[in-house]
């Protein structure tokens, strides 16, 4: 008789559905399928899909590769820490190290150009949270994640760490400059 008593009909699974339930199940099922295929559709036609290109790495190995790019393409340094600003050519591999408690180096990219951005951590988990665009990617130590990025707007972007990484977590902010497409002409 009720949900807290055993069903009165012994063969409850033969009890017919009410129309309201049947209709709703059909509608809900269709919606579920739309949502499922939407993810696949976006992989085929959308422009924002997170790369899964990943390599096992170590802090030393990753820092070495990042240092090589920094040595080659540094254009200036900023802040009291003399953080290098790296402006690699379009299409190239760029590196960003996450560590307690900064992102290193600062990058300078060009709008509309594509880069292979390598992310890894030297210590704990960190979060790559690009603001104000609001793109968020997890950074896991021991894994080198290669994300292909194409900045679509110029400006100064911040990279906020949004994975808790200890007492200095709130000071961990990095920067990416995106120069306008016309910037080179001037």
């Amino acid at each position, binding site marked *: 008789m009720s949900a807290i008593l055993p069903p009165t009909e012994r063969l*409850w699974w033969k009890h017919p559905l009410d129309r309201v339930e049947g209709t709703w199940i059909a509608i809900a099922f269709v919606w579920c399928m739309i949502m499922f295929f939407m993810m696949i559709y976006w992989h085929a036609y959308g422009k924002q899909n997170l790369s899964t290109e990943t390599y096992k790495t170590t802090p030393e190995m990753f820092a070495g590769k990042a240092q090589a790019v920094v040595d080659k393409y540094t254009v200036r340094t900023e802040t009291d820490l003399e953080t290098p600003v790296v402006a690699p050519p379009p299409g190239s591999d760029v590196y960003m190290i996450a560590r307690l408690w900064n992102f290193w180096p600062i990058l300078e990219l060009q709008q509309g150009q594509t880069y292979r951005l390598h992310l890894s951590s030297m210590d704990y988990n960190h979060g790559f949270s690009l603001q104000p665009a609001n793109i968020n990617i997890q950074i896991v130590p021991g894994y080198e994640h290669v994300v292909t990025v194409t900045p679509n707007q110029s400006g100064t972007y911040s990279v906020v760490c949004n994975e808790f990484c200890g007492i200095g977590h709130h000071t961990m902010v990095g920067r990416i400059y995106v120069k306008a497409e016309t910037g080179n002409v001037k």
Partner: protein
Amino acid sequence: MSNKTTYRTCPRSGLQFEAQAEKLVLANAVAGVIFLLIGGILAIGVVLTRWPTIHWLEASTFYQVLTAHGLDMLVFWIIFFEIAVLYFCSSTLLRCRIATPKVAWLGFALMVIGSVMNNIAVYQGGSSVMMTSYVPMMAAPSFYLGLILFAVGALIGCFVFFGTLVVAKREKTYQGSVPLVTFGAITAAIIAVFTIASGAIILIPTWMLSLGWIEHVDPLIYRVIWWAFGHSSQQINVAAHISIWYFVAAVVFGAKPMSERVSRGAFLLYIVFLQLASAHHILSDPGMSTEWKVLNTSYFMYFAVLASMIHGLTIPGAMEVAQRAKGYNKGLFEWLRKAPWGNPSFSGVFISIIGFGFLGGISGVMMGTEQLNMIIHNTIYVPGHFHATVVVGTTLSFMALTYFLIPVLFKREIINPALAKWQPYLFGFSMYFFCLVMMGAGTLGVARRHWDMAFSGAALAYEWPGAAYLMMGLVGIAGICAITGGALYIYLTVGSLLWGKRVVQTKISSEPTPIPVGAPSAAAQSYGSLGFAAPGTFVLAMVFLASFVLYYFINWKYLSTLWGLS
């Protein structure tokens, strides 16, 4: 077979309590409420620190308090109460003795020792690793050991529950199939066993790592398996609180499930698919393949979402059918207008159903979409979502159930019924608002688990837009209102337990009275309109679907404006 126990029939509800089971339900529920109290006090620190103009605690204290708040609320309060629900749904609803009460007490003791040990580890400092304790960030060994002991205790509780089902079957205290609510509890217990096993697989090596017995736990594998524990434990909550929704519909309205087949089928979908949800936390991670992410995050083509959408219709639907049968048959919504809004068990459950669906459900599916996850991963949107599922969904349902249990199980009158009437509204609606503004701040990118949105001391600070500061201020205000609502619940529950007028008891016997076999009811429905038994609920469901579709595609639109990523 021990027959020394006694059975008490509650004069008010007709429910029959076995003496041992009654004590166990009581002990587990009280332990849960104590952790809710501790977690609630800690919430004050969290909320007042994230409220930018107040920014109360020091960074180290804040992270410590946040770690303890997460564990006490998400793990200890909820699982203690769930063990109480499991014993209630087996021994009480099936009217049988509880299997192996001594073992059940052992489980309870382990849970108490584990939860206290874990709390002490956090308060000592040095274990402010958040609830997730991602390696290689390490906590004290007693942090992990506490969790492991608690989990073993909870696992014992699950097996006592399964044992009790066997007792009921063997001693023939009921005939046919178990009640739907018990079936839901079985779902919760099966998911719990899977969950606890995952927790053991990853927490035992991590504990050994903290002792220096092993060298390395892979950070990514930790995340994948930890979330098979962390997310699935929230699925136990879903199964448990949906069972409570059916329970309250049955006791308040005498509502009968619209169709046993549909409701049980939906629970079955949970058992089969809900465990895949670990992927929700790995969508923006390196390492896992796209195929793995898409299949897992959608619970294999959204079958568990389908199940939740079914429950979301059938529970209010059952209430509507019951109300219409009583004559509240005018128009689409007379059944709802004439519902007992002054009964906190009903209002709590109804606020919970609506909030869980509209706030928790829609946001959960959005953020669980592979690509969309990138716009909210680790932002304060995430706690906004899970406060809608776990607090509005689970905690508020448990509160609603408590108001039913105080006279029935605790044998006390509620000390201040007028306050009890208002408590679900205060708590529920301030949580609604709390979740909404958190999601708003998260949409603007504000990070979760973050002490200072002004980034004081950072070499390259970022300036959040003014709207983000406004939202976080509103989070503070709404949070304080919700904490007040939570404090009222504690006052009403503990106060009734200590000072409430005793409810006069009559029947105690040494033998269980089996559940009488009910006569099959007439199948045909003669209420409703257009051949729909519950047209009002159907309209509500369509409103839900429209909001769902709209919000889902708005977020795709937002995603499409971002940097190209491939």
